[in-house]
């Protein structure tokens, strides 16, 4: 390796160390209120809502930084069960939350704060000229869904069966945002996502409602975690989500009432 290359490598390493050192500060303010970082794990479908509520929460609690981590509910629940440091968990279905609650991972019983339903999205250009959910059965239409073990995949399977659609999906994505991005990128003719995802991406995809989707709702539970480093802030976050303000943000994003 030439000396110049070695020097730039060293600089890079130093930079990485600097970055790694940042953002770990936390502590207790003089007045007893908790400050520092509150870590909230949430299902990926909550990305927009929780990002919005984070602004509100940080304005209400000076000195507090909310760290949001979004992933599939199953992954998050598994992380909590494996002892990942987190204060709040919000999932997109009851089953994954139950796996945490059953092993005493939650601080009190989880509370349901929202519902969601399935919708179909097509790319803005609608390459397969789809007008209805039943159109998925047309030959040559490529559509993607969530993997059946994920809540959105289970809903998709139920709806496809109910509408006697026999055409197979082209891919089973591990979470709903991956389905959405396949449609946004125009790689699939259609995708089955949550109504809220369709709302969030309304400028990039077209939404086609699924008749009867209201009959199969997903309910979203939230809970402060028993292993929370900031139990007070964790409860305050849960309260904010359940508050009138929380409901407004949820409704604007397309979520239904519990």
């Amino acid at each position, binding site marked *: 390796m030439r000396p110049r290359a070695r020097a730039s490598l060293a600089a890079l390493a130093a930079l990485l160390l600097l970055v790694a050192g940042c953002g770990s500060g936390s502590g207790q303010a003089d007045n007893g209120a908790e400050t520092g970082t509150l870590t909230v794990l949430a299902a990926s479908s909550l990305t927009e809502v929780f990002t919005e509520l984070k602004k509100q929460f940080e304005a209400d609690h000076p000195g507090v930084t909310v760290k949001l981590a979004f992933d599939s509910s199953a992954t998050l629940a598994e992380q909590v069960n494996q002892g990942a440091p987190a204060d709040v968990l919000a999932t997109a279905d009851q089953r994954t939350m139950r796996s945490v609650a059953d092993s005493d991972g939650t601080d009190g019983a989880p509370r349901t704060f929202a519902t969601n339903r399935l919708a179909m999205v097509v790319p803005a250009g609608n390459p397969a000229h789809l007008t209805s959910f039943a159109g998925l059965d047309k030959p040559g239409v490529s559509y993607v869904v969530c993997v059946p073990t994920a809540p959105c995949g289970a809903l998709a399977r139920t709806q496809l069966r109910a509408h006697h659609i026999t055409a197979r999906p082209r891919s089973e*994505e591990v979470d709903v945002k991956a389905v959405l991005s396949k449609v946004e990128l125009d790689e699939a003719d259609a995708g089955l996502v949550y109504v809220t995802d369709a709302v969030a991406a309304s400028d990039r995809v077209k939404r086609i409602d699924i008749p009867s989707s209201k009959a199969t709702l997903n309910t979203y539970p939230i809970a402060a975690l028993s292993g929370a480093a900031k139990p007070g802030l964790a409860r305050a976050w849960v309260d904010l989500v359940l508050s009138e303000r929380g409901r407004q943000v949820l409704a604007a994003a397309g979520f239904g009432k519990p």
Partner: protein
Amino acid sequence: MTARGPALGRPPALLLVPAALAVAFLALPLVALLARTPWPDLPAQLTDPAILDALRLSLVTSLAAVVVVVAVGIPLAWLLARVDFPGRALLRALVIVPLVLPPVVAGVALLSGLGRSGLVGRLLDDAFGISLPFTTAGVVVAHSFVALPFFVLSVEGALRATSQEYDVVAATLGASRWTVFRRVTLPLAGPGVLAGLVLAWARALGEFGATITFAGNYPGTTRTMPNAIYTALQVDPDAAVVLSVILLLVSVAVIALLRERWFDQAVQGAERR
């Protein structure tokens, strides 16, 4: 080599201790994985058609990727090592980029280039009706993209290590440049080519991020072992562990086999020369 030991003295602790730490660091997660494995479940998983599908797909696509990588990688490595042309350093940098790219970004980049509405993918779709995402061919493309740099760098290194004088001698004896490449350059770089081959194959076999992003995740067509492991992790972490161990065993078995069959021959061949 053994004679050097006493003359140089004992290896210093300043080197031995960090080296031992490195070994522990590499071994611990693997040992923990093996310790967590529910071994009695292994036979049942090995006969599960879904697992066999994923395993078969993984082997087929990773081997296909190796073929692609060798076909275009050897000429590229030769070009970088043996031909002096302007912009060579830039080209080498370009070859290394996929190496540092996060695999998910590689997947997005592949979609932008070869996706149905990608830069070149759109032309493929319009002209031939070929769309790579969601197909097994798409998996091979993703594998090849991430594995190619490993192979090219390894072969280029081997080519540089062997002196160009042999090439020159062969040329003065009347061999054409193609003959020199085929009969002199390539055989001399043999061990490097084999090492690159194994590296590229291992990288392809373990490839996850680019594959799931570019090619998707469907049983039988695009759900390779790593995709299956990630999918299983969503519901049944124990099943994911079993799958990981299967993948681990397969790769260890293949590498051991290669050592027996090819490496030894290559090394012996090199020593004879």
